[in-house]
């Protein structure tokens, strides 16, 4: 079975693979999948797991460190054995369809043929879709809103207020760069490519993994679905309105277990490293990072789109 791990740069793809590798090899906590053997080449996975076990941030994937992670696994419930191939590619590879209208041929082939996807979005990143209109109250008095629109002449009254705008906002404008487009837009374009002509639309499963979930849900009570809908509105709408093509489950994941390097000492004290990782949503058990993969592999779901 071929599954893709997709996500923009620093969205947590490699950290998840590292944690999953440890989880399956260590077999220390209950999981829905179990490892049945090692791949022919374990170099890439070994490097990732080494960093993860040392409680160090997993390094960003570089051109020479890209690789295909292979897992020989068995579903404990059904006893079905599979070989999972998951490409661990740099996030830039997934930006290219939106930014330059092209995709690596090997990735495009994998996208066309894949059975399902793990889609990563990092909860611990700056909001990249803030509208200036929504910040107007910070810059101008309520009764001046409107007078500061694009085509209005600058008024004397607005002078002192604008002077209080943070320097970063007053800095000279930055011209449009495709790579600075919002994460959601890049992901949607990548997903659209999967079903765009000449490819035939196929119904696929997609597990959305919100990484750095420990930061969002420090006190508990936040549901991944609700967070995703509120904080990734365009992507959430896209998946919701295309439910004939995308079957979706949403998880909150903390593959490291905490912030690094701030919480490194605390994480190192955990005797059972598998208990560092956390996952919530879609009835996954607390530490079982294999649950989304198991769902992707599970039977059911017609591939043809009516």
């Amino acid at each position, binding site marked *: 079975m071929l599954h893709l791990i997709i996500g923009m740069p620093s969205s947590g793809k490699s950290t998840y693979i590292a944690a999953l590798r440890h989880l399956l090899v260590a077999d220390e906590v209950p999981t829905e999948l179990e490892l049945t053997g090692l791949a022919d080449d374990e170099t890439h996975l070994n490097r990732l797991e080494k960093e993860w076990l040392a409680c160090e941030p997993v390094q960003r994937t570089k051109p020479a460190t890209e690789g295909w992670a292979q897992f020989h696994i068995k579903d404990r419930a059904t006893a079905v054995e599979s070989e999972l191939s998951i490409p661990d590619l740099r996030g830039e590879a997934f930006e290219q369809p939106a930014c330059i209208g092209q995709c690596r041929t*090997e990735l495009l082939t994998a996208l066309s043929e894949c059975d399902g996807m793990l889609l990563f979005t990092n909860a611990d990143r700056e909001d990249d879709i803030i*509208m200036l209109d*929504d910040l107007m109250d910070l810059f101008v008095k309520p009764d001046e*809103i409107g007078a500061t629109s694009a085509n209005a002449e600058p008024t004397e009254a607005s002078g002192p207020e*604008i002077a209080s705008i943070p320097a970063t906002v007053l800095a000279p404008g930055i011209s449009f760069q495709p790579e600075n487009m919002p994460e959601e837009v890049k992901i949607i374009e990548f997903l659209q490519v999967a079903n765009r002509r000449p490819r035939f639309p196929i119904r696929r499963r997609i597990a959305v993994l919100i990484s750095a979930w420990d930061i969002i849900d420090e006190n508990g009570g936040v549901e991944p679905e609700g967070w995703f809908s509120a904080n990734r509105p365009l992507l959430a*709408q896209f998946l919701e*309105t295309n439910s004939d093509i995308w079957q979706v489950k949403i998880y909150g994941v903390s593959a490291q277990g905490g912030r690094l390097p701030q919480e490194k000492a605390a994480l190192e004290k955990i005797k059972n490293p598998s208990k560092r990782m956390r996952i919530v949503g879609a009835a996954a058990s607390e530490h079982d990072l294999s649950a989304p993969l198991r769902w992707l592999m599970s039977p059911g779901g017609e591939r043809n789109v009516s």
Partner: protein
Amino acid sequence: MEQTILQCNVPGCGGPASGICINGLSFEECPDVTSAKQGEAPLFDTNEKGTTDALTPVFHAMTPTNGAGSLDAISCDILLRARGGILVAIVAGPETGKTTLIATIYELIFRRRIANIKFAGSETLRGYEERCYLARLASNNNIPDTPRTRTAAKLSFTHLRLFTSENGIKDIIFSDRSGEHFENVLSTPRGIMNFAEIARADIVLFLVDLKELLRSPHLPISQIRRLFIIMEKSGLLSGKKIRVVGTKADLMESAERKAEAQQALSTLTSDLLRRSDTPLDIKPLLISARRCIGVSEAGEGIDVLMKDILEPKPPGTFTHGTTWPTRPTELDRLMSSYRNREE
């Protein structure tokens, strides 16, 4: 796969190492990308400490994905033939707010700010992002703006797939062309037949800058009136929804001023209607792409406009022709009894 060491000679461009070309070209096409042998220095990835990693950048074969910034007339035609859809033609002079309107519709849908309308996809995501960029914090601007459509720019289209619970998914296409094109056609009215988007449109939006309409009404009224007459006499408006959209309502200083603008817009709409030889579905509509006084969010009136655009066309009425063959066949005679019965 054949691997070649490539590097980019443009400062600031990550080139093949980053996977993104600053010129927006494939690395095979980009003239700034050279092989390491041709370049002066070999390219290496640099780690955070500034030392070289000796990681060889790898060239990957690339395949076009057919996504676009904007659609040209041919691509738009292909899309409409393949999927159907509603084509919205926007008619207005320079700096009236055409691009801002298109961008704001996208921004509001992006943030779920139009009730009961959901995003389902777009073939021109990058085009929308280019149009929205100057109104976002990421641009480092301090007031929202919209890039101006250059006079030399050709007719382009942006596309949205939208979902409503009443109508399911619909494809909506907005035309975008330079306002100068409409100024020019006032001098050479026959040129309107080259405005492909108006001939094909399901809905035509005449945009009027409300600030101009109140400050110095004669010129904008005259311009819109002449554009309307040119299109109406060319048969381009027949059977289409027509909306006279007053833009920049956010620039009205008071509620009284806004009411004044609304009245002026209604008068203009009535004026246009009386110039038509045939009954038209024409209405005035006031919108503000930016935030208005006393309104917490941008985009006043845009929800009404979108509902209007997405509302299904009423089914046309069908009537039998009155002509009858001079030499009726057996079938004609048979059918004539049914026809008489219906009449």
